[in-house]
């Protein structure tokens, strides 16, 4: 029932957790194959563990965690107990529950746990420390790993180690870690590329341009079989391009900026940079080409806004004064219009409508959610939303807001379920009250003790027959009747005159009859004895089952009301908890909404400020052109070259 709550962001952080689900054997197979997990069969020994993985593999971490917890409560993960704990820790980590995750991982760091699990526990513990900014502890945890981790965890471990060292300011060590690690043959070096890029950027910030350039240049030329790598490569080229621009090396800047894809998300900044590189070499006509292309793009983008100023600047440099004036005027109009649109957006956000549009259209699907944000209607409150997602803070806040809203929906659904449970319990209670007299009547009719006594009596009789060899005792009803008749006739004949020839003849016939019957009894005695024993055994089984059922019914009759009451108490106890949590969720969502509105307004105001600065620059430039034109009268007018 729990909706899919965790978004792409956390999914990325947990991507490598897939390896957790692997047994050691499978992991080694994974190492050798590409892609690592898709199509890899799982050795699932508990069905409910497989069910947890079913949700985990769909990135539905909350559902996975709920089912994992429930399966543990029911003791259904006996074959995967350790792996389950490891996964649970990882899932808590994805929820930002560092303490809970850390507690779980620490319990796995003992000698009773297999080495590969311990290694993974150290790795995730390192992640916990790292995210909480305990960098020394993170480094120690990483150093405690013995051997290699399975699958994609190994490169991620190297990335993590490099990042830890980078934040500790140990850039040289971080670079050495990356250099030491070589990806498996035939596999792309994604993690290392991310690490090199991040360290490169950190080095730029520290003014170590030369070293940064080496790293960024390498990342900027990696093979890019996927969109993700292509995007990273673009970022590296862009960063390096601007480093060279800053260092006043336009030629090198242009070379790397031209590696950026023309239609990618970094293309605007790259086009702008290419123009500046040409401009720095005073090739203004060439600079106009990328800038004019750029101006046709979405004016929300800072690079596009800057192109509005760069174009007339180039014209001015080319002494095409008229075009320069036209384009500065165009820029001023565009900036004013954009600023007015931002005003509208700020007003709409202040009225609290920022996030309604998102939640109204949210189906709870993890995957498509971010993409849907691109297609929001062009209303004042949502116009800049996707743009705002570029900021990490806003992204995280929005994710939290969405989680809170989905949780509210989820609890509302549970609230309805609980009402249904309550009704169900009530119905059961009434049905039980109705059935009790009938049940009692049936139970009263049956006396298990008496049945048991009869059974014992039968056993004794059969034992006596066996002991005495009483073959006639196992005769059929018809045979018994005949046997009784023979005995009666014998009795009558014993009183008759023994010298009477008729009596003698009768006695002979009876003797024959008796002999015949005894013969029959004796010949079938073994089979009848076996049958009697078998029936006795079956009777025993049936009697035991009857008694067991009788006891069960009796016990159920006694326990049922108590069990129903326990269910009732649980429902009664859960209802206010849902209500309280729902209220807290609503309050937190409201705070989150206000907070996001603040960020949005702050961002939009900063953008307005930038537009104002650009407008000011345009006005200065215009004034300068007019000033020049009036002092150089009679004017001849400028023309484009």
């Amino acid at each position, binding site marked *: 029932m729990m909706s899919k709550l965790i978004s792409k962001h956390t999914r*990325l*952080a947990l991507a490598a957790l897939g390896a957790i689900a692997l047994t050691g054997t499978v992991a080694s197979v994974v190492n050798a194959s590409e892609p690592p997990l*898709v*199509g*890899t*069969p799982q050795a699932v020994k508990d*069905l409910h563990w497989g*069910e947890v*993985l079913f949700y985990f*593999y*769909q990135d539905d971490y*909350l559902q996975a*965690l*709920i089912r994992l*917890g*429930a399966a543990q409560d*029911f003791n259904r993960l006996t074959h995967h107990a350790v792996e389950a704990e490891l996964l649970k820790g990882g899932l*808590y980590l994805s*929820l*930002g*529950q560092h303490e*809970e995750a850390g507690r779980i991982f620490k319990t796995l760091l003992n000698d009773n746990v297999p080495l590969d699990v311990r290694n993974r526990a150290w790795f995730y513990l390192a992640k916990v420390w790292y*995210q909480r900014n305990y960098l020394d502890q993170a480094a120690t945890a990483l150093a405690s790993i013995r051997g290699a981790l399975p699958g994609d965890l190994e490169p991620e471990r190297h*990335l993590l180690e490099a*990042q830890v060292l980078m934040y500790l300011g140990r850039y040289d060590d971080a670079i050495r870690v990356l250099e030491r690690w070589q990806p498996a043959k035939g596999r792309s070096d994604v993690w290392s590329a991310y690490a090199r*890029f991040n360290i490169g950027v950190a080095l730029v*910030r520290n003014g170590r341009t030369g070293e940064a350039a080496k790293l960024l240049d390498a990342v900027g030329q990696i093979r890019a079989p996927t969109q993700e790598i292509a995007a990273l490569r673009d*970022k590296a080229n862009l*960063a390096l391009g*601007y480093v060279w*621009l*800053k260092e006043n090396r336009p030629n090198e800047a242009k070379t790397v900026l031209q590696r950026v894809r023309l239609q990618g998300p970094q293309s605007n900044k790259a086009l*702008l*940079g290419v123009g*500046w590189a040409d401009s720095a070499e005073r090739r203004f006509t060439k600079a106009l080409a990328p800038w004019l292309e750029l101006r046709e793009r979405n004016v929300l983008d*800072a690079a596009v806004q800057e192109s509005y*100023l*760069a174009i007339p*600047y180039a014209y001015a440099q080319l002494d095409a004064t008229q075009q320069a004036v036209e384009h500065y005027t165009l820029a001023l109009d565009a900036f004013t219009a954009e600023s007015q649109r931002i005003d509208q957006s700020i007003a709409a956000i202040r009225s609290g409508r920022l996030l309604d549009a998102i939640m109204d259209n949210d189906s709870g699907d993890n995957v498509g959610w971010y993409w849907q944000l691109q297609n929001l209607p062009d209303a004042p409150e949502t116009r800049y939303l996707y743009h705002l997602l*570029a900021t*990490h*803070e806003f992204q995280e*806040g929005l994710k939290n807001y969405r989680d809170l809203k989905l*949780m509210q929906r*989820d*609890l509302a659904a549970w609230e309805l379920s609980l009402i249904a*449970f309550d009704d169900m319990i009530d119905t059961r209670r009434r049905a039980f009250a109705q059935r009790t007299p009938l049940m009692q009547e049936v139970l009263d009719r049956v006396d298990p003790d008496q049945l048991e006594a009869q059974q014992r009596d039968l056993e004794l009789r059969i034992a006596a027959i066996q002991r005495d060899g009483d073959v006639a005792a196992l005769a059929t009803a018809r045979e018994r009747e005949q046997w009784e008749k023979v005995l009666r006739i014998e009795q009558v004949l014993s009183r008759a005159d023994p010298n009477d020839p008729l009596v003698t003849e009768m006695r002979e016939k009876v003797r024959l009859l008796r002999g015949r019957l005894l013969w029959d009894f004796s010949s079938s005695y073994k089979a009848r004895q076996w049958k009697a024993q078998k029936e006795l055994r079956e009777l025993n089984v049936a009697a035991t089952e009857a008694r067991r059922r009788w006891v069960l019914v009796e016990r159920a009759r006694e326990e049922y009301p108590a069990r129903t009451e326990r*269910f009732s108490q*649980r429902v009664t106890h*859960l209802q206010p908890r*849902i209500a309280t*949590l729902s209220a*807290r*969720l609503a309050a937190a969502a409201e705070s*989150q909404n206000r*907070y996001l509105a603040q960020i949005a307004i702050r961002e939009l105001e900063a953008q307005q400020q930038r537009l104002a600065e650009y407008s000011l*620059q345009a006005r200065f430039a215009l*004034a300068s052109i007019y000033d*020049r034109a009036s*002092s150089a009268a009679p004017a001849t007018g400028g023309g484009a070259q």
Partner: protein
Amino acid sequence: MNSERIRVGIMSRMSIFGPVFVLIALLAASMPLFAQEAGAPATNVAGEEFRSLDQEVQALKKEVLDLNRELFVLEEELLFPANTQVAVFVSMDVGEFFALDSVTIKLDNKEVANYLYTPREAEALLKGGVHRVYIGNLKAGEHELIALFTGQGPNARDYRRGATVTLEKGVGAKYIELKISDRAARAQPEFVVKQWD
């Protein structure tokens, strides 16, 4: 003279300030990129207000999660007590010869479940996930279960196959696994019904 000075001033701002401005924005944007991939230390990602609100939200999430688990357990115990519970699971092994679209379950000739798989769910099954497609109650005794699988078989042809099993429901919960695997020798999928107690 004055206008020339202004012009030079603008040029210097445009040629130096402009790119540097974008560069700063670019570098600022690159850190979240890292944060997304590996999770950056808390101090580097957000301000105090964000962190305090974030902590509150994470704690709240944990409480909702615990509550959800309790509700989930209650639901199962109340609606599907162990002595009558029967659950049907679907699993896949390799899946080279069969791409699953849907599964229909009939119990004692009555349709109890009909589930259509999304590509994402089918992929999760291939990775080793197991889907509980049905949970319900059955009286003790003998019952018949029919499972109908539809999807694409070898050579991307529409494929429909059924599997029948007679199951003996005892006192405890009964689990049935419908396992789809590849029979490599015949290049055909295989549908196996496995009973768990």
